[in-house]
């Protein structure tokens, strides 16, 4: 008996050491990219591309390819920008549009999320609403401006209605896709741990569907912004306040090409900035946490 005791002891000590060795050999090394490499590989290329566009633009103007009224030089657009800055209207215009878009997006989030969950989890609702939601995604949101103006009138609510009709289907569809892609193994594992029904939805389905949901949010934001711009361009009225869309429309009415260029560039920059500042970091954080971000 005594001898078996000692062999057992020796064995377990040995086992712990063996296991520590295996763990050390097998452990996955997760490398974080150094800042310099990020700057060189991720930040520099788009900056170069922008610089290239500016150079080509200036060259086209210098070569007088077309009337200066049709293609204003970059400097003229810059002048328009600094005029707006000096008048103090730049941030007002930006804020009018961005606040509308973000508020509209948040409302779309609040409606699209439960709607997506219902469509994903309730068979009857999916059969009834699934095709309609997919169809709505391909309907350009400009189409909604006309009825929205007639139903609601020329006010902020009309803008929100157009944003919602554009963004809700994207968000709901993203969530449905995310839920559909949850591996069945997670659901089985969850059920053996006692997570079924609402607990299962909260602890397993929602977190597992998060990457798909985030992709839907990203697209939902893009649709919100586009829908809002369409609404602002078509429906202008003094009570609505000056947003980026109206800025563009005013440029057309005043035949102010630099103003039009500026408005387009600002619309583009806001769209990119929100994506870059909010959605991309969120998506990357989620994917990296799950080891899903493939480094190439």
């Amino acid at each position, binding site marked *: 008996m005594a001898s*078996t005791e000692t062999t057992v002891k020796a064995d*377990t000590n040995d086992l712990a050491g063996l296991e*520590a060795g295996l*763990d050390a050999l*097998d452990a996955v090394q997760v490398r974080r990219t150094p800042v310099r490499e990020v700057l060189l590989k991720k930040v520099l290329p788009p900056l170069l591309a922008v610089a290239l566009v500016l150079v080509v633009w200036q060259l086209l103007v210098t070569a007088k390819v077309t009337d200066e009224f049709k293609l204003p030089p970059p400097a003229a657009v810059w002048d328009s920008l600094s005029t707006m800055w000096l008048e103090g209207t730049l941030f007002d215009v930006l804020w009018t549009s961005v606040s509308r878009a973000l508020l509209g997006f948040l409302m779309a989030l609040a409606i699209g999320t439960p709607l997506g969950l219902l469509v994903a989890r309730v068979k009857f609702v999916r059969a009834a609403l699934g095709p309609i939601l997919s169809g709505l995604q391909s309907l350009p949101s400009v189409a909604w401006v006309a009825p929205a103006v007639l139903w609601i009138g020329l006010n902020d609510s009309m803008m929100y209605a157009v944003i919602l009709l554009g963004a809700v289907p994207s968000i709901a569809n993203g969530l449905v896709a995310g839920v559909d892609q949850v591996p069945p*193994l997670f659901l089985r*594992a969850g059920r053996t*741990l*006692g997570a079924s029904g609402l607990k299962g939805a909260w602890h*397993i389905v929602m977190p597992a569907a998060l990457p798909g949901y985030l992709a839907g949010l990203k697209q939902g934001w893009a649709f919100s912004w586009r829908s809002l711009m369409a609404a602002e361009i078509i429906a202008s009225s003094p009570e609505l306040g000056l947003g980026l869309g109206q800025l563009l429309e005013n440029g057309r009415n005043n035949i102010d090409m630099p103003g039009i260029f500026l408005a387009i560039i600002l619309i583009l920059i806001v769209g990119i900035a929100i994506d870059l500042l909010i959605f991309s970091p969120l998506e990357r954080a989620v994917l990296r946490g799950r080891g899903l971000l493939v480094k190439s």
Partner: protein
Amino acid sequence: MATTLAKAEDRIAVTHAARIEHVSKSFGGPAGRQLVLDDISLDVAPGEFVTLLGASGCGKSTLLNLVAGLDRPSAGSIETPGGRPALMFQEHALFPWLTAGKNIELALRLRGVPKAERRPEAERLLELVRLGGSYRKRVHELSGGMRQRVALARALAQDSDLLLMDEPFAALDAITRDVLHDELTRIWRETRLSVLFVTHNVREAVRLAERVVLLSSRPGRIAREWTIDIPQPRRIEDAAVAELSVEITEELRGEIRRHGQH
């Protein structure tokens, strides 16, 4: 040795951790109903380690799902007096959005363990599977063997008397698998859990179990049983393990051959 056994019997008053009585299971398919399990009766005693052995199509995973309560038998009954059994899969099935520690804490939370006790309990279980420093590790940062050990710790967090294991080591390399066999034997002896372990690997079955149950295929029936009294801890290369493995393999091959004869 004798004292630990007496203690285990104290703790568990019932005579079985799982009782499977005349269980049959059939699935509807394009070619009509197919009988997968036919009249299976099997008891797992408290603290007993039983392996279910069989070739493909013997329905061993189906039987495990039935015992786990993930599916219902077509006929017969299954009792697990200790409540919902814990289940470990061939894939680790850890949730990638949680750290190793939080995976275990989720099991504790779903079991109703108060918040303040979850962290220390998760740390203790990680310690038990010798992953003390891995609380904050993400699933993708762990090796295959470490993932299965976290999965084992999460299964233990359910505090069930019965642990069901569905080929949990099949996807691991041979060296890691050997180590995890030793580890599982150690933990089984420390916790005196009842284990029902499914595998198609004869040596693994003999290495681990007190009793090996051989299932025939299509439909799955209990073909034969062996009680194994080779003392633990065994090694997979022990002569006694090898000898019995040869005998069981012969029997298993006989079962498989019957399917080629018509």
